[in-house]
């Protein structure tokens, strides 16, 4: 299996799991969590691509909300201190990724000359 096939396989597994979660969540899960969603169906089609991508988060939030563990008031607390940490980590990561890319980049092997290994017919 080459790299491209491996990436494709991982995408298929992730997307397949996402499809199962989307099927379950959008057919009965969402009705239990959001009363405004009850009786509304067309918008659920629009959510499918998002669920395919972030299905672990959907499962996690589904579990939290269904189990009554959601602390909704926390969502309204200012989180500026934690934002500062991520605001610092993200640019450092981006610069690090670019630097890593540069460091592993090959240089054109201009000094490697072609070599004739054998004459025609040998």
């Amino acid at each position, binding site marked *: 299996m*080459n*790299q*491209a096939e491996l990436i494709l396989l991982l995408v298929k597994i992730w997307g397949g799991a996402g499809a199962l979660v989307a099927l379950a969540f959008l057919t009965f899960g969402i009705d239990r969590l959001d009363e405004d969603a009850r009786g509304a169906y067309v918008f659920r089609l629009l959510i499918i691509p998002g669920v395919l991508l972030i299905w672990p988060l959907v499962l996690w939030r589904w579990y939290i909300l269904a189990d009554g563990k959601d602390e909704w008031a926390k969502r309204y607390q200012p989180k500026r201190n934690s934002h500062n940490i991520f605001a610092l980590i993200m640019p450092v990561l981006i610069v690090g990724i*670019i630097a890593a890319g*540069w460091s592993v*980049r*090959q*240089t*054109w*092997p*201009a*000094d*490697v*000359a*072609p*070599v*004739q*290994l*054998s*004459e*025609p*017919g*040998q």
Partner: protein
Amino acid sequence: MSQEDKPFFVGYLDIPGPLRRFLLLACLAVVGIFVATGLLIGSTQDEPPASGFRFDYGRQTVTGVIELTPYPLLRVTQGNDLIKPGKTLMLSGQGKSGVDAQAMGLEGQLAEVSGIILQRGTIDMMQLAGGRRGLKMVEGDAPEMETEPLGRWKVAGEICDGKCLNGAMRPGRGLAHKACAALCLVGDVPPVFVSTQPIEGSDFMLITGPDGTTLPKAAYEHIGQFVSAEGDLERRGDLLVLKIDAETIEVIDG
């Protein structure tokens, strides 16, 4: 400054005085960082050489002998002001596709091809017009075409697709172009090896698999990387053809 005096930004209200200077500086800094980053990254890239579609030449029509390497070539026998007899043209279709299907069955026969030339230095290719306008058999006896064996060579350089390298895309090579080149090669666009140094006067050669096969799938892994490889080399007109052994491909360190 107490908490109550602290200026607070609300998008639809006037900007508080103390925040104006900060916002102006922040905007300038963000734009400046983007410009500087773009220039910095751009400065590390090689300048693409002069290459591309030669629409300024207009559509070219020439006659020659079709050879399948298995990638189709035209050995020009009746040229024009631009494409002289003795020239060997690699052929491709529109977009990321080759013309293997159209050329199949025409091997060794006289054919007329018509299309747009792509040119990069000493190497060129013709993108055929669609349908029978692009490739059609013509009456007449096809002359025997010589193929000159040049022995076995170990070469260093890069595996590219011939169309993008010729200027259909720029730069048309390198790691950033790997996915595009792979798609072109999957579509049967003729692959080309760019050598670090000229071989028999040419920096470029068409690459095939051994014994008249297409480029081995194992070679696709190394598209866009700088590699060395061994293979039998031959000359067909003014074009070199390297029959590459995929087992000998090695990534060059550094």
